[in-house]
């Protein structure tokens, strides 16, 4: 019995490792070829590079204007997420504590907005924001608040419901204002769901391509927008492109490495609720 179980485990491990290798093979090909010369890539895609060259990375770093793109991406993501967290949690708190029909109706509107896919509002949105000269970074951050608030409010709403109203009432008696109650008492208790909201929004906003491509000019381009640099109309420079793609992935992998438990949990919570 014991022997059989051990063998079964071994097979399972082998299967697991094999699938993992298949899963990682695209990354292997990307990284390996990013160190090759153009000529080497044409000659042998699968092999390790004959001579490791860092030239591709240097060139890609310059061409992508990587530091700038990274800064742009950070500005957009961090500001968007901050305002999404602040305003969604506030709104969810108010909507959850107000038991009236109107409040319920407004909550429903927020939830219903999730049904509207981005492509259905994309064209008028760009036209409207273009007219008021808001096709820039600030406009983009505001748009993310609009698109991100639905799911975030939905998640916060559920969490606030779980916090007893008696806490609010006790503080109220002590003379605290709503503002103080929320930030001093309620918001700290929402920390787990704030993590979830943050993670879900980071993954989406950091990687978003379509919306920023319509809103941002070249100088403010985020990392995904820059990726097109190597895919010219006439030339596809794979050696540089692969180095550029690798560069673009590094920050994400680093963060994943340090916070994978939180990330996986956040994603699971967000999906299941």
């Amino acid at each position, binding site marked *: 019995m014991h022997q059989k179980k051990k063998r079964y*485990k071994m097979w*399972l*491990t082998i*299967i*697991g490792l094999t*699938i*993992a290798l298949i*899963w*990682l*093979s*695209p*990354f292997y*090909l990307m990284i390996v070829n990013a160190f090759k010369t153009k000529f080497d890539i044409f000659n042998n*895609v*699968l092999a390790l590079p004959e001579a490791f060259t860092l030239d591709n990375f240097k060139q890609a770093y310059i061409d992508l204007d990587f530091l700038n793109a990274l800064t742009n991406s950070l500005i957009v993501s961090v500001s968007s997420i901050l*305002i999404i967290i602040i305003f969604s949690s506030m*709104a969810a708190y*108010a909507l959850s504590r*107000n038991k*009236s029909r*109107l*409040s319920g109706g*407004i909550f429903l*509107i*927020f939830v219903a907005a*999730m*049904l*509207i*896919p*981005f492509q*259905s*509002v*994309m*064209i*008028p*949105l760009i*036209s*409207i924001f273009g007219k008021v000269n808001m096709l820039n970074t600030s406009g983009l951050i505001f748009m993310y*608040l*609009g*698109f991100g*608030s639905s799911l975030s*409010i939905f998640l916060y709403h559920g969490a606030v419901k779980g916090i007893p109203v008696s806490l609010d009432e006790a503080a109220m008696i002590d003379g605290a*204002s709503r503002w103080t109650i929320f930030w001093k008492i309620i918001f700290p208790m929402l920390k787990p769901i704030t993590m979830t909201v943050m993670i879900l929004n980071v*993954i989406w906003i*950091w*990687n*978003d*391509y379509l919306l920023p491509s319509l809103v941002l000019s070249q100088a403010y381009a985020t990392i*995904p927008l820059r990726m097109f640099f190597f895919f010219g109309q006439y030339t596809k420079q794979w050696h540089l*492109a692969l180095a550029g793609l690798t560069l*673009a992935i590094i920050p*994400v*992998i680093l963060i*994943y490495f340090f916070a*994978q438990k939180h*990330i*996986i949990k956040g994603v*699971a919570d967000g*999906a299941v609720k």
Partner: protein
Amino acid sequence: MTNKNISFWLFILPALFALSVVVFYPFLYGFYYTFTDWNGLTATTFLGFENYIKVFQDESFTDAIWFTIKFAIVSIILVNIIGLGLAVLVTQKMKINNGLRTIFFMPNLIGGLILGFIWQFIFKSGFDAVGRLLDLEFLQGWLATTETGFWGLVILNVWQYAGYIMIIYISYLQSVPEELLEAAEIDGASVFQRFWRIKFPLVAPAFTVSLFLTLSNAFKLYDQNLALTNGGPYGSTEMLAMEIYQTAFSRYEMAFAQSKAVIFFILVAAVAVTQVYWNKKREVDM
């Protein structure tokens, strides 16, 4: 908090304002203009339903609908089977569980555009190289035909989302009581019996969640489509989202594109509402 309380309004105002300006106002605004010859800036004549009639006569749009539906069906099946398989695998008691979970989930964190470019290289150069090495002809010339473009998109999508769906299945699988499984094992139930008889029924609600997620993902897919095939060859792998984008920003037929976008909304919303309705009904039945 009551409706008369000013803090209630101040608390919800920023989010409500953003949502209205970014989602609802453009949606209604765009909807109005689908009945005109709007070009993005001005509209001169009222056309009634002409744009909508044209939408259904537009072959590239109907082709895109069918392609998207086909893609959605195949993707949903594969993503869920593989996602569930991976979930079952990594919930076995193995030393490498956490490592595997980390690896399978990783593609999710990277943007569709970047993944699309990586896979373009894999399909065009990687597959080709393996094909030559093993003398397998079907691995050569990927993305050059409609079929390989289709399967290329499916493979990319499965690879990207299976890890995500896996996470959802895991959280349900872990809710299966340990004692139940041990009791079954003592009673002599095999691995498969334990899975089918005990785990499967308890995991069933996860299907609803996963189906909805994969379906809406498949319908809204754009970045991957753009980076992997860009619709080629000859526009035959253009999915709905991309078709709408092309109509709007390459051909500048804004009112027409917006009409397509409205139809797109109806499709996506119908799917979602059905899902919610079905879900609720089943919960009541149980």
